């Protein structure tokens, strides 16, 4: 975002803290959301890894289902679908948030 | 000024039309370029002039109309666009040099990969063309290491290497720093003297007045007026032409003087 913003803020008499609070952070958040939404999606998917610890999240449950129904392909594919929907929805929500708080014509290079 | 009697027509554009998003960019445009001619296209900024050039070398497909190269219709569906483009050179406003190749590489790649020339022969020819545009010393430099004027001259050499029937120039100096414009115009003047057929879109009025055989004023997708420089600049037939040129002359007053003086070499 540039040190220029801080300089400009201070030139109208803001203290550093005020500058960070009213000028820097509001802009920084808007810039950070697109890459952050990648992170959010990744975390949703990585939740599957707690399977290794025996935590009964989606993947573990899918395994139970597959063991009980002898339909592993179906069970795990449905699990995949659920994850896909979760990441998709997460991305969509973040897209909407991004658009809502977007500063008009702000472009990140 | 060359005599135009019984000269061969290299490029003929007949009733060319092109729309972009519902807007008429080119409206029934017709144009003839004779062998050895230098035709300069002027007009307000907008994509009409660039579009015209891109239709001529078939990079853009026109909506209707016919284009002929050496009397062969190149707008027919059977035409191989790639082949046609071997014979029509194009020089772009933003140079568009291949960044991963040296100046030599840029000029020789068309020879080796398109015309199938042998590496050593291609290298020879490429060096010759680069020397022709005054860059014999820079053959092994990359575009990133060259100035704007040098880049554009490499671009011209790249086109020349293919021995084209005609070279299309799309505002070749518009992206250059003022000091570097001269070296490119110098090369272009040289080509005019050597008899290369050229179709040039430019804002450089001094250059146009000096070397053009004919000037074509295009606005809103149509030809407003065309004629030899003396006519167009000093006694234009259409009021709009007079208006446009007057405004340009104001803005480019310096340029006109520069090119008049600059020729005392």
């Amino acid at each position, binding site marked *: 975002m540039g040190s220029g913003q801080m300089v400009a803020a201070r030139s109208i008499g803001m203290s550093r803290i005020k500058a960070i609070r009213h000028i820097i952070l509001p802009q920084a958040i808007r810039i950070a959301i697109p890459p952050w939404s990648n992170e959010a999606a990744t975390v949703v*998917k990585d*939740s599957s890894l707690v399977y*290794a610890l025996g935590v009964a999240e989606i*993947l573990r449950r899918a395994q139970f289902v597959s063991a009980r129904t002898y339909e*592993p392909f179906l069970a795990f*594919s449905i699990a995949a679908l659920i994850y896909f929907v979760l990441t998709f929805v997460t991305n969509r929500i973040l897209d909407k948030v991004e658009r809502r708080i977007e500063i008009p014509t702000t472009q990140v290079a | 000024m060359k005599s135009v009697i019984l000269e061969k027509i290299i490029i003929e554009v007949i009733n060319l039309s092109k729309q972009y998003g519902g807007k008429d960019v080119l409206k029934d445009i017709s144009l003839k370029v004779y062998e050895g001619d230098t035709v300069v296209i002027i007009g307000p900024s907008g994509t009409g002039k660039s579009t015209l050039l891109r239709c001529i070398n078939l990079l853009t497909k026109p909506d209707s109309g016919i284009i002929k190269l050496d009397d062969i219709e190149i707008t027919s569906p059977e035409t191989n666009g790639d082949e046609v*483009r071997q014979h029509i050179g194009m020089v772009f406003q933003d140079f568009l040099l291949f960044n991963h190749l040296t100046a030599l590489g840029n000029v020789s790649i068309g020879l080796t990969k*398109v015309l199938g020339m042998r590496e050593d022969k291609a290298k020879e020819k490429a060096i010759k063309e680069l020397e022709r545009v005054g860059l014999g010393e820079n053959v092994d430099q990359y575009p990133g290491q060259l100035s704007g004027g040098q880049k554009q001259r490499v671009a011209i050499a*790249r086109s020349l290497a293919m021995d084209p029937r005609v070279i299309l120039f799309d505002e070749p100096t518009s992206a250059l720093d003022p000091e570097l414009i001269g070296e490119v115009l110098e090369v272009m003047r040289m080509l005019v003297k050597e008899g290369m057929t050229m179709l040039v879109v430019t804002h450089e009025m001094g250059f146009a007045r000096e070397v053009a055989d004919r000037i074509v004023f295009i606005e809103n997708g149509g030809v407003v007026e065309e004629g030899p420089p003396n006519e167009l600049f000093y006694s234009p037939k259409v009021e709009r032409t007079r208006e446009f040129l007057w405004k340009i002359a104001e803005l480019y007053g310096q340029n006109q003087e520069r090119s008049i003086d600059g020729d005392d070499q």
Partner: protein
Amino acid sequence: MTEWMQILVNYWPEFVRGAKITIQLTLVGLGFGAILGLLSALGRVYGGKWVRRISVGYIELFRGTPILVQLFIVYFGFPDFGITFSRMMSAFIVLALNSGAYQAEYFRGAIQAIGSGQMMAARSIGMSRIKAIRYIILPQAFRIVIPAWSNEPISLLKASAVVFLIAVPDLMAQAKTIAARTFEPIGSYIAVAIIYLAMVIVLTMILNFLERRYKIPGLETEAQRT
């Protein structure tokens, strides 16, 4: 807490065996993934309607679902259809497909960063689209993509650890085995973490070298200039 050093020394041969498998998995996944990724990226940028749709579909599917789930579908699920892959084979297939999807996005970014002007310039000297892609676009794309793409080998190396859950004897699997044998879970896992770290460091050095070697003179991205 320093048991890890002991374990590292005592069980070195086992760790090496596991590391070899991990490296194999990474290389195969990276290599085949590169081919898949490149084809998908080209398909997505230059392809017709259906080619584009298939490319996007593949990319979204494999980036939008966890790698572990993909692994389970291939190893546990495919036998339903009579297609049985061994553990190793399943791991290779899934890692390649998964990496391919991510690499496709890196390649696509690079190709688009080069700009349509290059394609136009190439065609203006008579090159066909294919020749232009081969001699003008791709050579530049490969150079430009290196900084971003270098995330992928590292990412893949770390992600490959999940295959231990289908009992592939990689480095992670060794950690589990040795933890059980020595009753020192912390020590074992720390030892393995250190080996992974060492591999990543070596990988990073190699990638940095490649980046410097294949720079196009005069054309550097901001990141490369530092």
